[in-house]
């Protein structure tokens, strides 16, 4: 399935991009994270086990077992630090 994936804050900087189109094999947030980890390098490092990050689907934070609707706007970012 096709997804638009956005990155913010430290992840945006480390991945060197603000967003990309991803053709996902699978349908859940966990599938997406696994596919991105498989790129190795900073992707494996930042999205590896024990690293804290959040996934949002259509601007709501979801758990890793969440399924994506087609053409979802997905975002991956560090725990928030505003306020």
């Amino acid at each position, binding site marked *: 399935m096709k997804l638009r994936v956005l990155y*913010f804050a430290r992840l945006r900087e480390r991945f060197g991009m603000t967003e990309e189109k991803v053709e996902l094999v699978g349908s859940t947030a966990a599938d997406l994270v696994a596919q991105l980890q498989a790129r190795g390098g900073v992707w494996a490092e930042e999205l590896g086990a024990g690293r804290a990050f959040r996934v949002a689907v259509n601007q709501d934070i979801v758990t890793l077992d969440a399924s994506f609707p087609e053409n979802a706007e997905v975002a991956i970012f560090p725990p928030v630090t505003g*306020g």
Partner: protein
Amino acid sequence: MKPGSMKIVIQTDAFDLGAEVNAMSQGRTDIGAIASFVGLARDMNEGSGVQAMTLEHYPGMTEKALATLVEETCARWALLDVTVIHRVGRLLPGDPIVLVAVASSHRGEAFAACEFVMDALKTRAPFWKKEETPEGERWVEARVSDNTAAARWDELP
């Protein structure tokens, strides 16, 4: 709370606490209590000096997350008005970052709701701070104490 009496703004400019609170009570006589909070940029964090900070956010999700949060707050307490203003961009120590003001008939509701909005905002609204320190730039890490502060509202009445 009457429809429309909720104000959520993301802006780079400074805000004016007095003007926001006056706007809430202007022309009405049913408000007995306005609790408000201003968060400011400090010159020190995690033991090192902070010369400036830049706030990044996720446009679209920020507004949605804050609107959901305020609706939840209004469902939980009897409120008459809520204002949330959060700044983004580069800020210096002493600069105000965030304002939350809550109007109610009675003070208990106003205090609780104002603190709830701040605690929830700290863990649910997509803002990130990057600090400029003498040792270089660094992204602020989320605080365990913020998760603790947010989680206690799951148990409190």
